[in-house]
């Protein structure tokens, strides 16, 4: 691992950690915005009923 450490240390890659962080935040914000945007309410309504609409509980 020593050789790899030397190469990476000299490459100045630490900034990419911050880039990854920003990309992740943007992706996450995309999910949040689209989640709360109007539309598909009826779909969510069906999906939230999935567990209680199921069969085979032997109840």
């Amino acid at each position: 691992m020593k050789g790899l450490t030397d190469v990476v240390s000299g490459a100045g890659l630490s900034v990419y950690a911050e880039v990854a962080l920003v990309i992740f935040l943007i992706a996450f914000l995309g999910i949040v915005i689209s989640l709360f945007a109007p539309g598909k309410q009826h779909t969510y309504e069906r999906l939230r009923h999935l567990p209680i609409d199921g069969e085979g509980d032997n109840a």
Partner: protein
Amino acid sequence: MTGPKSTTTGREPARYEPPIPQPIATTPNVLLDSFSYDDDIVRKFLIATFVWGLVGMLVGLVVAVQLANPAMNVAPFLTFGRLRPLHTNAVIFAFAGNAFFTGAYYSTQRLLKTRMFSDGLSRFHFWGWQAIIVSAAITLPLGFTQAKEYAELEWPIDIAIAVVWVAFAVNFFGAIARRRERHLYVAVWSHIARIVTVASLHIFNNLSIPAGPFKSYSIYAGVQDAFMQWWYGHNAVAFFLTTPFLGMMYYFLPKAAERPVFSYKLSILHFWTIVFMYIWAGPHHLHYTALPEWASTLGMLFSVMLWMPSWGGMVNGLLTLRGAWHKVVEEPVLKFFVVAITAYGMATFEGPMLSIKSVNALAHYTDWIIAHVHTGALGWNGFLTFGMIYWLLPRLFQAPLYSKKLAEVHFWVATFGILLYVVAIYSAGVTQGLMWRAFDETGRLAYPDFVETVMKLMPMYWMRAAGGTLYIVGMLLFGYNILMTWRRRPASYEVPVIQAPRLTKEYVEGNGRVTPAPAGVWARFVAMDWHRAWERLPVTFTVLTAVAVIVASLFEVLPTFLIRSNVPTIASVKPYTPLELAGRDVYIAEGCFNCHSQMIRPFRHETERYGEYSKPGEFVYDHPFLWGSRRIGPDLAREGGRYPNLWHVRHMEDPRAITQKSIMPAYPHLLKDPLDFVGIQRRVDVMAMLGVPYGDAVNRAPEMARAQADSLAKAVEGEGGPKGLQDKQIIALVAYLQRLGRDIKAPQVARSTP
């Protein structure tokens, strides 16, 4: 649903033949498949959950009592250091693990409208997992450990875990591939995230080189090893104890309340927030240690951000009970769920709070962390499991619950037990943290004798044991209810035959219509079609989830590994001698790291008590790192040279002969058990393979170890100690303890390569 088939119970020879799917044409475009669910595997996991839960909690009670009364330690196999990992592994992987598998096998089949992919894989998973638990129960008391919290099991068992996990994954993803419900409910996402993430955590944290059948050394050292371990440790909490149990909550709470989840959107947000944020938060376990400042701050920020989504999940759970609160009065199942969700809320508020550096400075190494963990484990994981199993019992054993009243008693006894436990241990944590940092009016430590801070905790330790006892009494009531309900089962279980339409290539909503695609890119985006497309393609969804987790992990972990300036080296720090290395392995086998840290934080009260604060470069040869996470005893980072050799020999033989109030176990066997000098060579060779500059020792480690042991044994004898210790394990341990922290005291020049 068509008429039920039947399968035999244990009273008759078990034989089950999976029904052959029978397509039934109802309309020209809709074919119905007939199938049934495999509940036999759910019953197996349910019983295993109870059995291992009881075992794990009993071991927990034993170690709690050992802290209050050290005479309860029975060396060499049943000491606190060896039993504590057994307790944590049993409750996490045996109790909570089997509970998750119970819930996952029940809910996944029903949410996907399919039987599991392979009955054979289900059984291989069950028996394989139980075999792993048994092997842990045998090897940990024997002292076989990797010394990494919640990852103590040695390499052969780690490989077995990976194999069984892959079998589970194949079974799970095979079921997804054969599903008859297009949409993957949020509970299934949680299970996918768990399968993928736990596999990554397990593999990367356990990478090691074997040095014997049950001995290995981590490929990482010091800071890197610590970073990797707490990346694992923190995310194991997230993806073993949080997301899967949230998946269970999102399935079983609506079932029990007979109400849909309050907000499906919130559940999606909750899921993605955990996937995106949890993975960055691990470094908060290492505040003020020899960790780069940027990593510590990053971990704190993401931890604080996690508070809101976690509470969003809690609120989502509690609001699911809107209009059904009257049922909580009558139904013990819902009582358990309400307390579980409340405990989740408390633990996920406290977690971010503890990650704030100034709070962490007080809480780290104290019982506060133990209280935090048990709020989550006893309240969230335990009560959610109890509620789920009480709901499942009548359905799986096809008989009414034996006694609802007994379940009510279980609830109240266990709730009181949790309160007694956490109140005691929160008090102990804050008390100890404040005593450690107290100075008197002359500017000296107010409690310089560490044992004084331990004695203050004794009433709280007994109170904790009482709380734990109550929780176990609740478990016994739980077990009795399970047993009596099982005894009421029918001679043969009915196996309902389910019918559901096969999936078609077009997306079909519940009413059978083909949904038209929204027009325009933006319309498709806000309509979440892109997200729904992922869900229809579980492979893509799984890969993207994995990428989110792994990329975040790599960008956080790799800089510490690959950027040299993060771990400045210290010229005077040298590898351990072969004898010291053997002594370090004795230290590991006895589990000393469970009570003693080797990491002095840069606070005045720590440097006054222990000496110079720890530097990252001091640990570059530590495979694995032994910083510890709890100070039941004092820090040992600068232990070398603090006491004479004989002091250590006497102290290990009988701690109370040296410190009257000490609660440390006695290790008299170390003065009798022989040291395996020949085996040291292999260990040195593995260390050399990992890059430790061992020089001449790779050729003659046993001889070098014997020479140092002879010299040290003579020194002990010269101090008035016993004769003939030169080939005993105690000599290696003393050599190691006397080495700790000495290198940095030697004249040296620190260098840092940018």
